[in-house]
């Protein structure tokens, strides 16, 4: 059985759902950022799979994947800065204990 577009898309869906579960359940802020990175990687896999199976000569999906990577790098830089500021202020990065904005 040869590998087709469906295999890649199912792999991407599995990775995305694992990341979603982690982002919803873990309490450490750094782990939540790591799970968001997992979800972004899943999206990149499906973009590149579409690019190489649906429009093999155009590379549009690969260009989109590059922009996803740029935004992911910016997101992780700001996110980890916020985590460090949070740690300095509260001496804690447990999401359940930091609920100032929770109504």
């Amino acid at each position: 059985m040869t590998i087709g577009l469906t295999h890649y898309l199912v792999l991407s869906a599995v990775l995305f759902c694992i990341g979603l579960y982690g982002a919803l359940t873990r309490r450490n802020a750094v782990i939540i950022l790591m799970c968001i990175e997992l979800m972004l990687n899943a999206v990149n896999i499906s973009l590149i799979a579409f690019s190489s199976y649906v429009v093999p000569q155009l590379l549009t999906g690969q260009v989109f994947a590059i922009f996803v990577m740029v935004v992911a790098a910016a997101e992780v830089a700001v996110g980890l800065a916020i985590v460090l500021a949070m740690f300095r202020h509260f001496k804690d990065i447990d999401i359940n204990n930091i609920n100032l904005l929770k109504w």
Partner: protein
Amino acid sequence: MGQTVAFWIMAVVIVGTALAVVFLRNVFRAALTLILCFIAVAGIYITLSADFLAAVQILVYVGAISVLIILAIMMTRGIQKGDPANKLQIPAAIVAAVLLGILVYAVTSTPWGISSQPPLTPTTEPLAAKLFSENGYILPVLTGATLLLAAILGAIVITRENHK
């Protein structure tokens, strides 16, 4: 044949390491398995004949983002032991499983217009032509550069000590 074997190896490594990231108690070990997951994703890109993106994945994710994450873990020492999942565990599992079911159903039942042409390789030169040519993606490239600059400045401002 080679692509099939490579895909299954990479897929097993990706799913296994992703589960380890979600379920490992030790934050540092979770970060290390996350690096392995990024490397396996780069392997998946290679099986899709996206050579430039595989290199970028190694450089940006394995090289830069992992170092940032490990640095953040080391700066927040003392809270890395025991990170029990919170009360949302069962609803989150249901949501993730339902979403996975919907996605797999949508993926398998959609007739994708798969092209018979071989993928373009090597991709570096055509990607550069697409990104930087006049009727290409030059405006998003410049916007991305501005976003990165803003993110760097924001990170510096947020983490700076407040000396009064």
